[in-house]
Structure formats: structure tokens, C-alpha cells
């Protein structure tokens, strides 16, 4: 089943007289339940692509269909609703609210969805349990390690039972050991809960957790292969 379909999407920024093609006619289809890694050097367009997939931005041209809905035609508030219901974000810098407990951070997405307090609490506790943070509900971000903070962020991403998690360099700020734990958590969510995971990384080791890798260069999609083939190709090259 097709979850995400990008048809010829371009994103053009006008910088004075020159126009910058951050994305140039990119078409990708992502099925439900995939574990996809997006790779490429800085400025290759992978972040722009992520922003469009994450409904934070709309393409200049082309169509982006999320569960068969054309996102390009939606208003600001409709996009916010889609982000709330369909997408979970995990960032490199964790992006938790400071001076707010883990539990309240996880409850945040439900706050914008008018879920009653009791249900909010139950769901948030369950989500924290899924990511292995039982008993840390009332810790504040500054009382948690980097790995734990990222787990809180993942709990926040999944709490609304979204079909997709978008993870933008989720291990960029973590040591190798913790990175492995976080990637195993993503793998578990992908396999057990069937959540589609789209991962941006530039570390090949991290990308091996995915099953498909697409590569961007100068705004173009240059490679789209299953992970095993992609890795072979690397070794040959």
C-alpha cells in the first residue's frame, strides 16, 4: 500500500537574481511499513525533501500525496492537523520543551487534539513504556541523558499512533553505544508496530538499519536501492 507519493516535486528558492533549485523534479514512492534512509552530503536537498514529506513545507511544483491526500492544496492549519495525526518527528537536537517533565512532553501532541486529560496520561505513560522509560515520567529533560531524551522524543512522536516517523539525524548527538540502542528502538517500532520510518543520516553504519536507501545530490535523486545492494555498491566504489 502506497503511503507517500512524490510526483516530480521541485523546490525553488529565489535568492536575489539567482534561483536555487533545492529539489529538482524528484519522484519517490514509499510503501507502508518501509524503513527508508535518506543520504547525501549537506546541501544535496535531503533536508528540503524531509521538510516537504513532513508537511512543514510545500513544493514549488509537483504533487505530494500522503495517504492519497494532495498536501500541496491544504491550509496552514490543515497541515498542522496532518502533522499531528500522521507524522511523528524525531530531531537531532531532541527538541524537548525544557522545564517540562517527560510525561508532559509526551502529552504535548494530544494537547492539540483535544484528548481528555485521563486518556492523555494513560497514552503518554504507555508510550514512555514502549521506549523503555518507565519510572522516568516526572524527570525533566536536563535530568536525562542524551539517549533518554531521544527516547522521550520518540515516545512523543508515536503517542498519537501515527503511521510515519520522520527522523532527522536522530543519532547525530549521541555516542556509538547509545546510537545503536536508539536504532534498535526504531527497528522494533518498524517491525512490531508497523510504523513506517524515514531516516535522514550521513553515517553509513546508521543507514544499515534501514532496508532501502535513497541518495540525493544537488537536488536530484541519484540512487534508490535496497540497503544490501547500496552497501555492495559502496564497497565496489
Amino acid at each position, binding site marked *: 500500500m502506497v503511503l507517500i507519493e512524490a510526483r516530480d516535486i521541485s523546490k525553488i528558492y529565489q535568492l536575489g537574481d539567482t534561483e536555487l533549485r533545492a529539489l529538482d523534479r524528484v519522484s519517490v514512492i514509499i510503501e507502508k511499513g518501509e524503513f527508508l534512509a535518506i543520504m547525501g552530503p549537506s546541501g544535496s536537498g535531503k533536508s528540503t525533501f524531509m521538510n516537504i514529506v513532513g508537511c512543514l513545507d510545500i513544493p514549488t511544483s509537483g504533487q505530494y500525496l500522503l495517504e492519497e491526500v494532495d498536501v500541496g492544496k491544504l491550509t496552514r492549519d490543515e497541515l498542522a492537523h496532518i502533522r499531528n495525526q500522521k507524522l511523528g518527528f524525531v530531531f537531532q537536537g531532541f527538541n524537548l*520543551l525544557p522545564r517540562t517533565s517527560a510525561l508532559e512532553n509526551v502529552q*504535548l501532541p494530544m494537547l492539540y487534539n483535544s484528548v481528555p486529560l485521563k486518556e492523555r496520561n494513560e497514552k503518554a505513560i504507555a508510550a514512555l513504556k514502549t521506549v523503555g522509560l518507565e519510572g522516568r515520567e516526572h524527570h525533566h529533560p536536563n535530568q536525562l541523558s542524551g539517549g533518554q531524551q531521544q527516547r522521550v522524543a520518540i515516545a512523543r512522536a508515536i503517542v498519537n499512533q501515527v503511521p510515519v516517523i520522520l527522523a532527522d539525524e536522530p543519532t547525530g548527538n549521541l555516542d556509538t553505544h547509545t546510537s545503536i540502542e536508539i536504532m534498535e528502538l526504531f527497528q522494533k517500532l518498524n517491525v512490531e508496530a508497523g510504523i513506517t520510518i524515514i531516516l535522514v543520516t550521513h553515517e553509513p553504519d546508521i543507514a544499515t538499519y534501514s532496508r532501502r536507501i535513497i541518495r540525493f545530490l544537488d537536488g536530484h535523486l541519484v540512487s534508490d536501492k535496497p540497503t544490501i545492494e547500496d552497501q555492495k555498491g559502496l564497497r565496489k566504489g
Partner: protein
Amino acid sequence: MRSALTMLGIIIGVGAVIAMLAVGTGASRKIAEQTASMGSNLLIVLPGSQTSGGIRTGFGGQPTLTLNDAEAIEKECPAVQDVAPILNGTAQIVYGNLNWSTRVSGTTLGIIRVRDWPIATGRSLTDEDVRSATKVALLGQTVVDNLFGGIDPVDQIVRIKKIPFRVIGVMEKKGQSVMGDDQDDAVFVPVTTAQKKLFGTTFPGMVRQIMVKARSAEDLDSAERQVTSLLKQRHRIGPKKDDDFSVRNLTQMMQAAEEQTQIMTILLGAIASVSLLVGGIGIMNIMLVSVTERTREIGIRMAIGAKTWDIRLQFIMEAVILSLIGGVIGLTAGITGSSVISMMAGWPTEVSLMSALLAFVFSGVVGIFFGFYPAYKASLLNPIDALRYE
């Protein structure tokens, strides 16, 4: 800390509004009380200027009013309820080895009703007292306090200008007049006794003023007209001549005084409102700083699904809470401040529920008004830029 400083603006604003309104309300209440203590619906007839050989004397310069004028007013003016002629002067009053200088007024029993001033103990003056010029006196409370240390003054003999008077009664306590003098520092004797024994008169039956009480507030104007025309007729004043008396409407004077305090209250309130406005601008300022500082947080909230109004409401609520807390503290400060003012300056103050409510609601409105722009600004942020903001 920063929130506390921000609230300070609102605290001072609300506090000032409350205190100023309290001073104003207190002042107008005091005036109303004093108006009531003067007696209501009063006219005062004073002897007027007289022209003789081109020289005009001032009001009260010529003793032109008589006891007969007073009686005529009472009989012939239908809008008049009571009349009290007054011939007064200052005299030394002696009881035992104590003496006291006070204002002695010769009058009739009409004074009781004209001034709404009941007798506390003993009896009042009677027509008989006036007719036969008996040597009896009614004492005000201050005089009693200064001459009789706890002794019942009724039926005691006091000497006024060395003439013995029997005390027949004591007036109830009346308090300060509008002008601030002690109304209880007074002695009342029959007007005829005052004329014949105490002060003497340049011509028979002279009085210094006549106090007139109209039947009601509506009758006040017609009473004034009736008294004026009656006295013109009695004094034989031709149509082109100046009156030799003047009729003053006390109630009007009181109303003017009350209007003045109201204007003062509005003025003070307006000045205080300016500080509330400044407090509001302080809130807007701090909210704008807060929006900038929390750009990243706004980005996170937007990415997670906060809609335009979710962001706006959050910041407006914060501004409102800030200003409401400031409002409550300001209210307390205002109440404390106004009681300090009334203690230090001796002014009466009164915090009305209305002004407290007004200040509270107003501080809420200030929060909404000055919170809106920062909230609006926050809601327009681009989530991508906001997320990247360091």
C-alpha cells in the same frame, strides 16, 4: 524575576487606579454626609448691601433682616416648611471654675427641624421661651465636654457674658461641617434673649440670618422665589433697586462641591489609567522578548501539530495570567495604599467593590490587548525556521 518586573507595571497601574478611585469615592461620600449634616433643602437669607449716598456696603453689612421677616416667611411662603432666624456672636460661657469661648446663636425652635439636629437629652426651645425671652440654653456636645466633666448639664446654671442661663438640653453630636469647623461647638438660646440680653441690636428684632427649609428638594426653587418676592415686598424694594438681602441655596453649593470631587476623581483615575497603559506596554514588551526567546519551542509545537490559534491562545493566556496576577497584587497594594493615604492625610477613602471589579477586569483586558500582537507574531512564524532557530 523578569515576570515580576513586568507585573510591577500592572501592579502600579491597578494600585494607582484603586487608590485614586478610593480617595475620590471617600471624598464625595464625606461631602454627602456633610451635606446631610447641614440639613437638607436649605436656603440661607442674609442681610444684603445697602446703598446710602452712593456707598454700597457688602453682603451682611447692613442689619436689614428682622424676626418679623422670619415669621412672615414661615406664614406666607407655602413652599417653606420651617424657618430659623439666627442672631449669633461669640461669647465666654462659664460653669463653676471652667470657662469656654463659643459661638452663641439666638434662634427659635425651628432650628431643630431646619438643621435636622435632634436633642439628645433635656427639652428643646419653645415658642414660650422666645416670646418671654427666658434665660435658657441648649448646649452642643463640644461645649458640654469642655465644661461638664461627666456631670449631667441639664438644669445646671451656666453664665454667658455673666448672665445666668439654665441649661435645658443637649444637642446630639453633629461632627464637622463642610468647611471643617466643629458644629458641636455651639450654644443655642432664644433669639429674643440674644437680642435683648447678650448682643444687643441696632434696631428692634434684628437677626443676622434666616435659615429656611423648603418642603422638599423640588420645592427649593419655588421657596427661593417666594422668599425673595416676599422680602422685596416687605422691604419695599422697587423693581429697579438692588435687593438689601440675598438668598443662598446651600444644597446647590453642596452639589457644586460634590461635582468638583467627581471631576477630581475622574481626573485622578485618568492619570492612574495612564500608568496601567504603560504597564500593558511593559507586558507587550516582555511577551515579544519571550516569543523571540522561545522561537524554537514555538517551532516544536507547530511541528507537533499546534494550529495558529493554539499558539496565539497560549501567548495571550500567558499575558492575561501575568496581568491578572499583577491586577490582584495591585488591588491589594491599592487597598493598602488608600488606607495609608487616609491615615497619613486624614482623608476618608473608600474602595468600592465596583472599582475593584473594574480594575480586575481592566487588567485582564490589558493582558488580552497587549498580549495579542506578540501572540499574533508568534503564530505567523515559519515552523522550519523556528525549529532551526538557535
